[in-house]
């Protein structure tokens, strides 16, 4: 992970200060963070609440302007039209307006991205299929479960086929099966050559993705490196822990999938 330089996503000593209150007291959310990711990489942002994960993603998405430093998407400044075309952003826990079906939502965002008519419909259908939401496309978006809502948000991020995906806690509040589906989908996207930057809280999920890790605290980068480096001395113990977690998830799904009464409470 090299600071600066060309790549899918590059942050060069990015600092972000927020003005708080009427007096505009400066609050530092990111402090000289540098990061460089290539195509096909997956990067997990870890850190406590308020550590700057969402701020970093928003800067990369062009929603926030850094106070100092710069952010490039495939060599283009973040926030510019060209950079926008190349990124797909999934905010944390979005809520969709009433009166729109999931399919209409995705078609609407495809049209906003410039794909109207038949092309827009095709793009929307492809995005819905990619996240496994095709059968729910006629359902009103607001009535979807949390897991399906997160999938819909991912479909919106994917609809214009971006090269860099920025996902803010895509598994927050989602049940284990939907979480497993989501993580599997992210791995597939990485395999398809997309760069995926994902903010997470659960370490087991980070372990499952096993990509690069950036650990933030109070806006400062405390660690940046490969998953194996992140594990460090505990690497030896993770084999058993990971197999335990995988076993637990398998048992959970087995019980859910069992026929009525087969695995029920006694």
């Amino acid at each position, binding site marked *: 992970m090299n600071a600066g330089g060309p790549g899918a996503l590059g942050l060069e000593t990015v600092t972000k200060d*927020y*003005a708080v209150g009427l007096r505009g007291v400066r609050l530092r959310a990111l402090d000289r963070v540098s990061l460089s990711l290539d195509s096909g990489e997956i990067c997990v942002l870890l850190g406590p609440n308020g550590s700057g994960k969402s701020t970093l993603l*928003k800067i990369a*998405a*062009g*929603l*926030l302007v850094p106070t100092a430093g710069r952010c490039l998407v495939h060599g283009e400044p973040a926030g510019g*039209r060209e950079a*926008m*075309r190349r*990124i*797909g*952003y999934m*905010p*944390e*826990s*979005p*809520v*969709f*307006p*009433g*009166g*729109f079906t999931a399919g209409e939502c995705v078609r*609407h*965002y495809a*049209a*906003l*991205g*410039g794909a*109207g008519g038949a092309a827009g419909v095709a793009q929307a259908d492809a995005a819905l299929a990619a996240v496994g939401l095709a059968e729910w496309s006629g359902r009103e978006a607001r009535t979807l479960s949390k897991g399906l809502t997160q999938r819909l*948000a991912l479909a*919106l*991020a994917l609809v*214009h086929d971006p090269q860099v995906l920025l996902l803010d806690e895509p598994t927050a509040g989602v049940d284990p099966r939907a979480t497993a589906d989501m993580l599997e989908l992210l791995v597939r996207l990485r395999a398809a050559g997309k760069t995926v930057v994902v903010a997470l809280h659960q370490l087991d999920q980070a372990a499952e993705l096993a990509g690069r890790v950036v650990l933030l605290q109070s806006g400062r980068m405390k660690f940046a490196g490969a998953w194996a480096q992140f594990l460090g001395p505990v690497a030896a113990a993770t084999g058993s822990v990971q197999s335990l977690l995988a076993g637990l998830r398998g048992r959970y799904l087995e019980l859910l999938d069992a026929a009525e009464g087969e695995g029920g409470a006694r």
Partner: protein
Amino acid sequence: MKRIGLIASATWRASRHQRVFALTLIAALLLVAGTLWLRPFNFGSSELKFVADLGLGILSLGGAFLAVGVTVQVFFDATENRTLHLVLTHGVRRGEFILGQLGGVVLLLGAFTLPVLALLWSLLWVRETALLADAAGLLDGERMLRPGGVLVAGMALWLKACVLAAAVLWLCTFAGSRLFALGTGFLLFVVFHAHPMLVLPGESAGAVATVLGWLLRLLPDFTAFDAAAAFYGDGRDPVRMTGYAIVYVAAFSWLAARQLHQREL
């Protein structure tokens, strides 16, 4: 333009599904229809004036209520539910988002004004026809109700609500909460009506009072959209009135777009 249209259509679609719109529209229609119950008072010619003033007052208040309430609702829904983030990361500019949202609200205000105005017009027509028939031979048969006047009155109220919506949208871009935006929005409605009170200070006034007086007079003057005067054929030139509204809508939209750039999302 296409993106503005898409945002406007989505805003219009989302806002017309809101209960506040349906309830305001139904309440306004019921109140206007309720003026029929005033017939037993039998005020003669003033009955028509009463019904017209009541109807126009309901339109003005309902329009202001929707202009403030729905604008605050759609803007904060977009920011708090993070649809604004999604929209902006699909290549939509902040100015396009503001114009789109305003377009949706403007359509909604039209959808409120038109049916209430149509009902008011129909009621007045029916009552005037009945009164003229009752007074056959006594009056010269000339109608008070002029279609042009009714239309210009409705247009004046719609334009007034559109200017208010644009001002409220600007307010939303720097407001920290819905409550602040709602409260200040209704305050703006009152202050913009108080324009004639903002008398320029005399020669004896200090420099601060003079500058303040001039600045206050730069605010929109809602008495320019005098629906009652327009109704009786004594209103301002509709073309100039439209131009007046367009200048303020453009200015507030521009200010809102600029402020949205400054807002930390």
